[in-house]
């Protein structure tokens, strides 16, 4: 179990999610628990709760998990997945309001230094306008 906050990448496209994760691994390294998912339950473009639940399990850290999403359905499905988590995980998983690629790299960089979930989220969200 890592001492660092975990990062989950949720895109409508498995290729985008995998590519973003590749960039995080190359730029930040292996110090951060990292998982990605993309695609609808039928294998097309979209997002689905089941694969987000698996990604959260895979990147789970006691310090928490930050989720980076691309478009609307990815956010809605991620929030649904968070609500379906056991009580002891509630409050330790957040969706970051940030661009998916830049946000994932920034969040992972912050997480790799041992930052808290709040700090990781804030760093990713510095990229968002407004």
């Amino acid at each position, binding site marked *: 179990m890592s001492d660092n906050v975990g990062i989950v990448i949720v895109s409508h496209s498995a290729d985008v999610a995998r590519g973003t994760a590749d960039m995080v691994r190359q730029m930040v390294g292996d110090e951060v628990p990292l998982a990605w998912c993309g695609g609808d339950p039928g294998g097309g473009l979209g997002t689905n709760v089941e694969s987000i639940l698996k990604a959260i399990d895979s990147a789970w850290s006691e310090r928490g998990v930050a989720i980076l999403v691309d478009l609307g*359905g990815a956010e809605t499905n991620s929030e649904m997945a968070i609500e379906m988590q056991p009580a002891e995980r509630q409050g330790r998983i957040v969706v970051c309001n940030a661009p998916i690629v830049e946000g994932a790299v920034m969040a992972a960089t912050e997480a790799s230094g041992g930052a808290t979930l709040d700090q990781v989220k804030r760093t990713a969200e510095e990229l968002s306008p407004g």
Partner: protein
Amino acid sequence: MVDTARQKALIEAVAQAVIAHAGELTALDQAIGDGDHGINMKRGFEAVLADVDAHAAKPLPEALKAIGMALVMKVGGASGPLYGTLAMTLGKELPAEPSRDDLVRALGAAIEAVKARGKSDIGQKTMLDVLVPVRDALADGGDVAGAAAKAAEATVPMKAVRGRASFLGDRSIGHMDPGARSSALIVAAVAEALGEA
């Protein structure tokens, strides 16, 4: 009284209505969204149909929760969590033998849950623009299916501010919202199935 046979007929009627209109829902979604609403809803309701006997054998609240979970898992997109939340909240709020008052109250709670899930409200060209008038018609004892169809039609001139359609801004005006249409289809199927029994 909702017995197993009637509950099965009700679930089948709703699922078949959605599946039969999948092409139309996708065409509506291609106009203002990402073109997957029909495909997604069809996949979700096919999963519901595959377990229809199990759903029909459960008490109504438990059946609604199980159907909601199936929709969450199988529909994908934003519609999965939205319709899943709707069904699961109805399941949480309804007694096994609901009266009309129970339905009005439970639908009100489900509407609030959908608003929270979608961070949206009435007038934003979404399924809520059908669900709210349906609740009102139910409360007044009016024609529920007629209210649903009229309400879906009323989304045509609206401008989308939520979901993918919001990227289109003014260009979303002039098309019926696909979620409003699928909601109206479901409401009409429920009203017809309950009316016939």
